[in-house]
């Protein structure tokens, strides 16, 4: 142990005096503050948008008159750890609306009509497959803090380790060292220790400085954020360890330092620039997804079918209730069954109530039918993600980045499980409506009390009288309608996003730590085998 320490210490001293160490400092100083600042700015901007949207959502819910207007907006809370790792955040939207007609698929980004339900404007693509359409795959994670850490430190680990054996052999130092009572494994672990001594402190300093900066920037740091930072640093260290072992293995296999440097550099290029797009491409090729436009077209057909079914229901109840006057003094209507009427006849109100009692359930049935299509699409997206994940196992950098996304709750899986929560909430909302018989109530579409509904005759009179009113009197009536009492929605279930927890972070990280441990053990085993056989002459 003492000898390992001596070799590690000697290497540490040498590394500190080398140009490589200055490169380490330079790269850390150049890129990391930059990514931290941009990450924080981005987080703050998203947080502002979220707060505004949340205020709008709360206000919308508190200013409803009828239950058909209650379509809660669900706002995705910004993850503070996204400062470190954005994952797919920039590709995703921030909100969803709970609708009767449709299940929420993914967070919505825009409200433009041109945009599809998956939240971004799709380009016109010929054919049936939607390659490059998986927004979970179209990411370049190297621009965030952990991305840059992975990029810089994988390069540095290779730079420090590629000539660990080959350079010593070339300079004849191996002969000198092994003429002393030094075990080859002692030398190997000393070498690894020396590189770790150089690379571990900068990693810890980087994360400490970033945590200090977050406190300075006033970012709320919960327990989960702290544990996330600790886990990220541990993940980075285990990743660097694997990279060091790869570098040393290259050093043992290469016949010259130049050869080792070339191989290390090519490997790094492959890890950073080639494997990520290749794994995405392979995933898309092996498990293609259909064009979402085609799914939307099928959903549109179901919507048309539903429209006619609802029309039939409406006509059936209008007939049964013998509705003669299908008008209201105040009428406001919108999408997803929204209807706010005032000044109705008894027969018309009854027909609408009975229609809603059936039609809104029909909407739910159709949304379930549409969900089958959406779910099929989602499963294909998931399959692509999973395939990409398996392919990325060939690159420790990708494994590191994907785990960082998991820990920071910005990975595709996190978004998918969040959407699962949103869909559960949707179920909860509509169950509330069903349990409280809101679809079957007058309050679903009017603020008028049952006893105030008019007869057909009264309606004719009021209508005629309304025509004779002056503009001022008409405005006064409209104002009266505006000042109607609002709906009490306090009992309506509210969406509570699952907060980040240490257990969840640990659970997300455990697999990768195991992966890195197994990979390290395999590399250590191969490295030991190689080191023992290494020709030191």
């Amino acid at each position, binding site marked *: 142990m*003492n*000898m390992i320490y*001596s*070799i590690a210490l*000697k290497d540490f*001293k*040498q590394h500190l*005096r*080398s140009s490589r160490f200055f490169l380490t400092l330079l790269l850390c100083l150049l890129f990391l503050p930059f990514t931290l600042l941009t990450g924080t700015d981005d987080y703050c901007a998203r947080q502002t948008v979220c707060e505004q949207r949340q205020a709008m959502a709360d206000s919308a819910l508190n200013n409803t008159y009828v239950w058909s207007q209650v379509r809660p907006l669900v706002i995705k809370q910004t993850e503070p750890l996204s400062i470190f790792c954005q994952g797919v955040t920039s590709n995703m939207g921030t909100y969803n609306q709970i609708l009767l007609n449709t299940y929420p698929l993914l967070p919505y980004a825009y409200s433009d009509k041109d945009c599809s339900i998956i939240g971004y404007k799709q380009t016109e693509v010929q054919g049936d497959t939607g390659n490059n359409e998986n927004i979970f795959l179209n990411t370049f994670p190297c621009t965030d803090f952990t991305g840059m850490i992975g990029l810089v430190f994988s390069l540095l680990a290779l730079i420090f380790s590629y000539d660990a054996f080959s350079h010593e052999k070339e*300079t*004849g*130092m191996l*002969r*000198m*060292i*092994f*003429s*002393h*009572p*030094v*075990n080859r494994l002692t030398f190997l672990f000393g070498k690894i220790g020396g590189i770790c001594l150089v690379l571990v402190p900068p990693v810890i300093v980087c994360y400490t400085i970033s945590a200090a900066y977050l406190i300075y920037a006033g970012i709320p740091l919960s327990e989960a954020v702290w544990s996330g930072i600790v886990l990220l640093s541990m993940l980075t260290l285990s990743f660097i360890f694997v990279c060091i072992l790869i570098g040393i293995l290259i050093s043992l296999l290469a016949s010259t330092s130049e050869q080792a440097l070339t191989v290390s550099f090519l490997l790094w290029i492959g890890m950073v620039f080639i494997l990520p797009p290749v794994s995405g491409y392979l995933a898309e090729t092996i498990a293609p997804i259909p064009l979402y436009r085609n799914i939307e077209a099928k959903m549109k057909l179901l919507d048309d079918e539903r429209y006619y079914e609802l029309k039939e229901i409406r006509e059936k109840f209008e007939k049964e209730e013998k509705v003669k006057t299908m008008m209201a003094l105040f009428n406001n209507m919108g999408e997803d069954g929204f209807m706010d009427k005032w000044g109705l006849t008894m027969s018309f109100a009854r027909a609408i109530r009975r229609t809603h009692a059936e039609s809104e359930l029909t909407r739910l049935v159709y949304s379930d039918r549409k969900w089958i299509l959406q779910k099929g699409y989602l499963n294909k997206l998931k399959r692509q993600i999973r395939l990409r994940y398996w392919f990325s196992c060939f690159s420790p950098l990708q494994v590191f980045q994907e785990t960082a996304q998991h820990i920071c709750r910005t990975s595709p899986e996190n978004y998918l499980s969040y959407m699962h929560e949103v869909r559960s909430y949707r179920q909860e909302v509509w169950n509330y409506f069903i349990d409280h018989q809101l679809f079957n109530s007058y309050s679903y579409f009017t603020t008028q009390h049952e006893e105030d509904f008019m007869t057909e005759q009264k309606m004719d009179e009021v209508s005629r009288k309304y025509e004779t009113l002056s503009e001022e009197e008409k405005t006064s009536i409209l104002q009266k309608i505006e000042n109607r009492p609002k709906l009490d929605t306090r009992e309506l279930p509210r969406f509570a996003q699952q907060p980040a927890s240490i257990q969840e972070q640990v659970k997300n990280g455990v697999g990768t730590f195991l992966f890195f441990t197994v990979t390290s053990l395999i590399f250590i085993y191969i490295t030991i085998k190689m080191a023992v056989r290494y*020709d*030191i*002459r």
Partner: protein
Amino acid sequence: MLQAIDLTKRYEDGSLALDALNLHIEEGEIFFLLGANGAGKTTTLNLFLNFIRPTSGQALIDGRDSVKQSLEAKRLLSYISENVMLYEDLSARENLEFFARLNGKNLPKETYYNLMRTVGLKETDFEKHVKYFSKGMRQKVGLACVLQKDTPNILMDEPTTGLDPKSAAELMDTLLQLKQKGKSILLCTHDLFRARMIADRIGIMKEGRMVMLRHREEFMNEDIERIYLDYMQEVPQ
């Protein structure tokens, strides 16, 4: 005491580098191993150092097998190569300290300074980076390493090559001092002149075999250079 018993090395390509070498170097003896390039001198040293494994036979260092008791054997052995290899970006003292630590020693700075004084290194060079050192100065640091390790056996591979006459003479003086202390010294060289000066025995190697062995009393009365050249030209049986 250094001992080679039927020591043989055949490489993977089939070439025979060393053919049943038998050698016995007593305490306080300086043995010069002579021979042309490729004769098997360095292979012999490599086998004693366990850098390569023998095909058959044994290399013993004070009775310890160089393969089976490698670490124990190396504790009893010092080695100086033709170009003493040191860490360029460490000072002479740091290099000494590092090699001392490899032997499990943690000595005070002053001890290293004394060792360097003993081998004739200037005080101003003690903390200077080795990259600025001449070959002679490196040899001195190498010798300081040997003194620090203080082993009963010393192996040297062409130690005088490239040294100026003064440095070479100083090295020979140091070797004689070490001999006085009872060290067994095996020195591989082409330097017949130095061999004649201080060797107790010389052996001439050719194509992996020891073709001639002479005691000091014998070779002092002979034209060693003539004998050496004759052996080099002789077609092996």
